[in-house]
């Protein structure tokens, strides 16, 4: 895995373009190498982060960014290499050591205990600072006010929305008096307005002399907030970029080492034949305390053959429940679902799948795969009653194996064979297997929830192509994605979901991610006109 540095970099300057550092750099990583079974996650990485700057780290999925940050945070030990903090060499055994050195990390996935209060989550591990009672509460209020985080210490975390959780995560770090903040993809779940608010916070921190290391796949954001950018590819630093003189396209190509694919899809294939009609869908959930809340409220839409309907929305606004209701995994309290002229409102999941619904689930580990089962059994999953997987009541392992080989070939699933367990494939390859499986049964309707989440660019392009191709042949697609570019690029029609309701619609040809984002936070509704919103 020896990559010649900057082999295709447009801006392969290895020395930082910004002014010379004043005093010791906040973080110096030298020759960091980390190996996992079968992967070299980090290979001889060198990074210098100057004090009082926002330093961005970019790279493809699996490039090794998170691993590197976990090493810096003491969660993982490097196999080789050294770390220096403020000029002093350190050796971290666990996150506690890093915290003591003034390092704080906000992880890619939330690290919060749902059933504990905000206060408990914040003080955990640092109880010595202000205890776990009144003093701690006061300290939290103080920090919250100082940075305008608006955090309520006694709320239960499970009652918080994603943006609030993100703020709790940041507060956790500040509470510990961290001077060096690591933010691993903090914006992935935020809408643009929330991102702006976060960046304001970051700039405030920077002005107080704190150092921020920032990871994101959204290159526009990176360019807007970072002082310096380091690019990682396949575990090694391939170069750095000056945000002032670089475009997102250049950055992306530096990251990937090739041209960036785009989800654009303009030639319309929409027909007038409705394939899926959902009407008046209502779903009330009862939570652990027996209190009812409305999760889906009078949701209705139609998808025609050859149409991609995109649904935008902040996570947790009912998209997952909508998908589960259409799949028959949840019984709605009211409403009908008609697929290709047949009312399937009461049909079990299996029948719906047999009737031609393909499903790419949001969480492939939870809903898409049997991680401990071999690939060929995963190929059967969800289609056990269909050929070639079974004959009558019996499984046909031979045919299923052969067909798995075919999918592995056609969809470029990188694996040494079909007997390995799904768990041993990387996320992207797992996703390719799922897409291949669902497409193999020629669905009439494809429900694709975040189909390219956590998938690297190459695989992303492939999946987009597959969706487009099938659409041309009359496939109807219900697309749910947090990636607004993907959503706008692939959809023929766009709807916005907010608090269980479809509150707005938009034309993907004209809408911008910012406009969509504002509707996602409930700030706009109805038909979103491109100009109308810009004027406001």
């Amino acid at each position: 895995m020896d990559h010649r540095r900057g082999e295709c970099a447009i801006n392969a300057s290895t020395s930082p373009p910004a002014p010379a550092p004043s005093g010791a750099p906040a973080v110096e990583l030298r020759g960091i190498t980390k190996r996992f079974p079968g992967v070299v996650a980090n290979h001889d990485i060198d990074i210098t982060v100057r004090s009082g700057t926002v330093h961005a780290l970019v790279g493809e999925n699996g490039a090794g960014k998170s691993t590197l940050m976990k090493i810096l945070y003491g969660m993982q030990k490097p196999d080789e290499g050294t770390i220096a903090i403020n000029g002093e060499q350190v050796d971290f055994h666990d996150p506690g050591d890093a915290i003591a050195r003034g390092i704080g990390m906000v992880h890619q996935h939330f690290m919060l205990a749902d059933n504990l209060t905000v206060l408990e989550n914040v003080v955990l591990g640092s109880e010595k600072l202000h205890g776990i009672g009144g003093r701690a509460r006061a300290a939290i209020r103080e920090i919250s006010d100082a940075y305008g985080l608006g955090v309520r210490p006694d709320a239960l975390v499970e009652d918080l929305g994603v943006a609030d959780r993100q703020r709790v995560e940041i507060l956790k770090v500040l509470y510990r008096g961290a001077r060096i903040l690591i933010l691993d993809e903090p914006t992935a779940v935020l809408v643009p307005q929330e991102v702006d608010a976060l960046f304001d916070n970051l700039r405030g921190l920077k002005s107080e002399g704190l150092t921020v290391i920032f990871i994101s796949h959204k290159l526009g954001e990176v360019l807007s907030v970072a002082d310096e950018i380091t690019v990682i590819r396949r575990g090694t630093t391939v170069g750095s970029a000056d945000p002032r003189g670089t475009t997102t396209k250049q950055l992306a190509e530096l990251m990937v080492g090739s041209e960036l694919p785009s989800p654009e899809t303009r030639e319309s294939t929409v027909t007038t034949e409705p394939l899926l009609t959902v009407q008046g869908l209502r779903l009330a959930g009862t939570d652990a305390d027996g209190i009812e809340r409305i999760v889906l409220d009078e949701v209705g839409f139609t998808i025609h053959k050859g149409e991609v309907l995109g649904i935008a929305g902040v996570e947790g606004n009912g998209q997952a429940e909508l998908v589960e209701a259409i799949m028959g995994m949840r019984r709605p309290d009211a409403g009908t679902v008609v697929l290709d002229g047949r009312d399937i409102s009461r049909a079990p999941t299996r029948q719906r799948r047999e009737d031609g619904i393909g499903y790419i689930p949001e969480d492939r580990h939870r809903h898409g795969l049997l991680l401990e089962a071999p690939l060929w059994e995963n190929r059967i999953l969800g289609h056990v009653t269909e050929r070639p997987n079974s004959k009558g009541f019996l499984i046909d392992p031979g045919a299923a194996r052969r067909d798995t080989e075919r999918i592995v070939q056609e969809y470029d699933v990188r694996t040494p064979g079909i007997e390995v367990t799904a768990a041993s494939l990387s996320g992207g390859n797992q996703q390719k297997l799922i897409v291949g499986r669902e497409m193999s049964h020629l669905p009439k309707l494809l429900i694709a929830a975040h189909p390219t989440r956590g998938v690297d660019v190459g695989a992303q392009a492939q999946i987009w192509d597959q969706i487009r191709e099938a659409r041309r042949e009359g496939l109807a697609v219900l697309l749910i994605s947090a990636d607004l570019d993907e959503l706008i690029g692939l959809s023929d029609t766009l709807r916005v979901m907010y608090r269980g309701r479809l509150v707005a619609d938009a034309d993907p040809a004209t809408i911008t991610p910012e406009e969509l984002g504002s509707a996602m936070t409930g700030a706009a509704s109805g038909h979103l006109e491109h100009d109308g919103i810009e004027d406001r």
Partner: protein
Amino acid sequence: MKKFDKERALLAIAAPVLAVIGALIVTALVLLATGKEPFTAFHVMINYGDKTDSQVYILNKATTYYLAGLAVAVGFRMNLFNIGVDGQYRLAAFFAAAVGGAMSIPGIIQVPLIILTAMVVGAVWAAIAGVLKVTRGVSEVISTIMLNSIAGIVIGYFLQDGRLGVLDKNANMVSTKPIPSGSHLFNFSTGGGAVDGFIVLAVVAGVLYWFGLNRTRFGFDLRAVGRSQSAAEASGVSVKRMVITSMLISGALAGLVGMPTLLNESYDYGTDFPVGIGFTGIAVALLGRNNPVGIAVGAVLWAFLDRAANGLEFEGYDQELVGVIQGVIVLAVVIAYELVRRYGLTRQQRQVGAELAAAAAHKQEVTA
């Protein structure tokens, strides 16, 4: 792919071998600590177990344990912990014995009828836990344990003189009316005694278990639920229905557990009917890793140890030693399997990684 499979087979054997070795070491230490020399004890155990009548004894016991293991394993395969096999088989055997004693029709009809009764009773009793889990969210671990106790009390209620029980004054024993001799199951006479004919049905049950789980759609669904309930649900399996169905199957199999004893040995259900086999079944299923052949090996091993207990006692050792060995083996087995499983997974990931690296290198060469 060939080499791959061979290594997998090696890995599969590694766990139980590791566990038995571990157990032997611990047992030897226990013996040494209590001032006894371990090798003679092991020698006694092996020697004694090797005798023909011992073999018959072991086969007969193993038949029962095997069925119990299967019953437990069905639940385990879908992450359902049916701790209640014990209550299920006792209740089933009891009512089957009562039905068998109450009539006198040709064995060819009556024997299947008795077996059917047992399976139905076992299934119904197990289904209570299934229904409670599905409709009320009660953990099957807790409910089956409670149902075990309740089963014992129900039997106690009916197994009384004048109810379904008959008192044998001389023997001080209450039991159900004996099953007429026309409805005794055949057996295989050997030099060391009679091997229960029910062993044939146990083998059939094992084959059906294997076939049902590995070759049918239903079995696939069941295993899918065991591996990931959420993924199975999304794939179209009704997990609730599957919970109840597998409890029914598990209970029906549990119903068979008492049959070798009832139809081949005691011909009635009395106060001396064996208890606790359901718990042995858990151990046997763990030893056998829920695999039909593995369970057979586990059952034979367990029966062998039971037998060896007699041998040890005859030679002046404490028969309780066997309880220690059994406990240690089970613990060692679960650890060994986990270690081997992890090792296998890491190994596989390494292979996948190597493959990917090779592919990447290849691509680079081409593009360069």
